[in-house]
């Protein structure tokens, strides 16, 4: 599968995404410069982590207007696969390609830690290689990962299975302590209604090598590599 990794000014985990996809997994992955108009035949667009435009004003608020985002939106509208990790998730929310928004962690501080997330819906193109209830160990590293959305919308999202990942403890149980950033309903990752756009705060690209915190992140990328359903 061909992966296009968008590089915004202030993107930081773009190189890590390329490393995970190309060097570790042997996939074809290339950088899409934010000023480009085309996604150049990418079959999955990845919006990486970082502090695009310094995350000034609101995280992802300014990056959303980069030229490349027009074609990303179009690609998504046509059913193309788009994944946003951390800052990428924030950008997708700001661009209204995903519901909700991400705000200041309840600790009001940046949190860098390996956490556990439970796969709530393994039938999406992003989680297919896992099973419902699987617990993945992935790192989070963000200051604004507290997921919020209007209650009624949350209810619908749950019904439709759009809540794809939830923070849990190592044994897979929900607990307040496991929900470090204080996200509503411990939400760590969500998909759109069509299940072709996915955003998550944890970093799968930082969990692809045994010596660097395990390989659970591969599950996400392997799912996507199976292509759109």
């Amino acid at each position, binding site marked *: 599968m061909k992966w296009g990794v968008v590089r915004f000014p202030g993107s930081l985990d773009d190189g890590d995404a390329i490393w995970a996809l190309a060097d570790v997994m042997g996939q074809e992955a290339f950088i899409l410069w934010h000023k480009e108009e085309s996604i150049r035949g990418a079959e999955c667009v990845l919006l990486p982590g970082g502090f695009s435009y310094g995350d000034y004003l609101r995280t992802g*608020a*300014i990056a959303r207007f980069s030229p490349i985002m027009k074609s990303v939106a179009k690609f998504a509208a046509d059913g193309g696969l788009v994944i946003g990790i951390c800052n990428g998730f924030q950008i997708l929310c700001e661009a209204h390609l995903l519901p909700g928004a991400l705000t200041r962690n309840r600790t009001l501080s940046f949190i860098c830690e390996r956490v556990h997330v439970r796969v709530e819906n393994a039938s999406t193109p992003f989680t297919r290689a896992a099973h419902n209830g699987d617990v993945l160990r992935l790192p989070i590293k963000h200051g604004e990962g507290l997921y919020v959305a209007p209650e009624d919308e949350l209810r619908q999202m749950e019904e439709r299975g759009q809540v794809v990942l939830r923070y849990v403890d190592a044994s897979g149980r929900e607990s307040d302590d496991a929900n470090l950033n*204080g996200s509503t309903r411990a939400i760590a990752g969500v998909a759109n209604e069509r299940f072709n756009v996915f955003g998550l705060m944890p970093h799968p690209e930082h969990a692809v090598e045994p010596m660097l915190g395990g390989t659970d992140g591969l599950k996400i990328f392997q799912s996507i590599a199976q292509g759109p359903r």
Partner: protein
Amino acid sequence: MQVKVFVTPRKGILDPQGRAIEGSLASLGFKNASNVKVGRYITLEIAAASAQQARDEARRMCEQLLANPVIEDFRFEVEGE
């Protein structure tokens, strides 16, 4: 024209910052402070022919960039009104 924009957290949306400040205020002895909300205060100059035009521009700026409707409300004042 000078424009002042006030962006505030939507009702019902968590405002951890506001709660934290409330806590610190209490611990500083300001026990009688409550209902603290933290928002953004943005000031800018708009080169506009009329206050009306400035208002229209300001509104579009807020809708498109300065506020996120999912979590924030906005309000603005065009100076001299």
